[in-house]
């Protein structure tokens, strides 16, 4: 097991899905790591960091990976962007979408069957807040400051939501959502335009990553004494 903790250096832990991984966040040198928000935040504070995010992760996976990390490691601060509440980790890594592209027709039908027969908004909300709750509790118990963000709003109230802390900052909102969000509506031109593909894409671009990084840096400065960095 790799020991991520470097004594004497501020160490940041990032986790999430493809948004945190930096998918489609290409730099001039075509390296997505350079411009993703985890790198920008770490550079700002001259800190070491690990970005443990994995593309297409569900919140089940993000939570489980975080617990696995915490078992043998620690960090000074953790930044986790929770993903779409519709994703599930069962024997398949389930996510909705009529045509996900990388699936065979048969596999796509299996995915669609799940969302048609076993899923509704309550299921997504319960699972989202259950994962959020155990993350918050674990970091609190370990006395590690945690900055949580959520990619999109999650409706529906439940006991898990009531047990969680205040509402989290939302990264993007859908067409019908009225809440504030860091990047505005999903797929807007400013933060979702790709020069490389010359069209709007599913993941926010490097400008979006800069906006997220600035928000996190602001949160650090607001919540914690910046002199510790």
């Amino acid at each position: 097991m790799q020991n991520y903790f470097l004594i004497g250096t501020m160490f940041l832990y990032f986790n999430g899905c493809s948004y945190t991984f930096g998918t489609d966040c290409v730099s001039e040198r075509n390296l997505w790591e350079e411009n993703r928000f985890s790198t920008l935040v770490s550079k700002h504070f001259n800190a070491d960091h690990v970005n443990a995010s994995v593309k297409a992760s569900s919140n089940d996976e993000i939570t489980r990976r975080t617990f696995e990390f915490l078992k043998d490691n620690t960090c000074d601060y953790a930044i986790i962007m929770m993903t779409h509440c519709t994703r599930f980790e069962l024997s398949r890594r389930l996510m909705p979408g009529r045509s996900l592209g990388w699936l065979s027709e048969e596999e796509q039908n299996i995915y669609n069957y799940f969302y048609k027969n076993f899923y509704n908004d309550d299921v997504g909300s319960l699972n989202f807040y259950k994962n959020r709750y155990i993350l918050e509790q674990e970091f609190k118990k370990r006395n590690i400051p945690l900055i949580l963000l959520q990619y999109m709003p999650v409706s529906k109230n439940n006991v898990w939501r009531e047990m969680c802390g205040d509402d989290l900052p939302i990264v993007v909102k859908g067409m019908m959502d009225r809440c504030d969000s860091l990047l505005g509506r999903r797929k807007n031109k400013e933060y979702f335009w790709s020069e490389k593909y010359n069209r709007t894409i599913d993941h926010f671009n490097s400008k979006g990553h800069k906006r997220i990084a600035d928000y996190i840096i602001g949160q650090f400065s607001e919540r914690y004494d910046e002199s510790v960095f």
Partner: protein
Amino acid sequence: MNLYFNGCSYTTGFELDDCESDRFSTLVSNHFKADHFNNAVAGSSNDQIVLRSLEFLENDSCDYAIIMLTHCERMTLNKNIFTNRNPSFYEEYYNDEVGSLNFYKNRFILEQEFEKKNIPLLLLQYYDVLGDNIYRRKCKGKIQSVARPSHSISAVTTACSHWYSQKSTNEKTLVGTRMNRLYYYNRHSKKTLCHFNRYGHKRVADYIIGELTSTI
């Protein structure tokens, strides 16, 4: 003293002739001359048992909680998922790891929550759940199993039969193998039940009384 009980049909006393009087929650409470609340609901999954427990803890408290966790393959999504009613779910979306992760994640949450509130918690599990995962490693050791699966259960579904067929022989359980004559037979209906009978409830109650006596 206030005791809190939660679980599925095994804790409700399902299939007992007089479930209110004969179920183990009543026997334990009578022994300690305690008040109790049996919050169990037949057909519950562990997801629901945890949710109900947390809902209870939001506005209430107790001196001791006794929770019997249920079959790990039961899950709650937009409905309760059972092996016999939803075979397609188990065929396409479920395997032993899914059940184990969900079981120990729920168990971990319960243990954390009761510890945080400083309420002693006695957990039992109907069957042992194998599998190594991060949530299991974070749970507090082994808990007592009530029964071990009978061989017939492995025919229920291939998705959750693997461990059942492998593990069932040597584990010490409170009522032995499921559906054995001593603890699962009902003399009035002359049938072997799916749920343990009044002697089974007495056996479970005696175990709980023993555990509570050493700590109260």
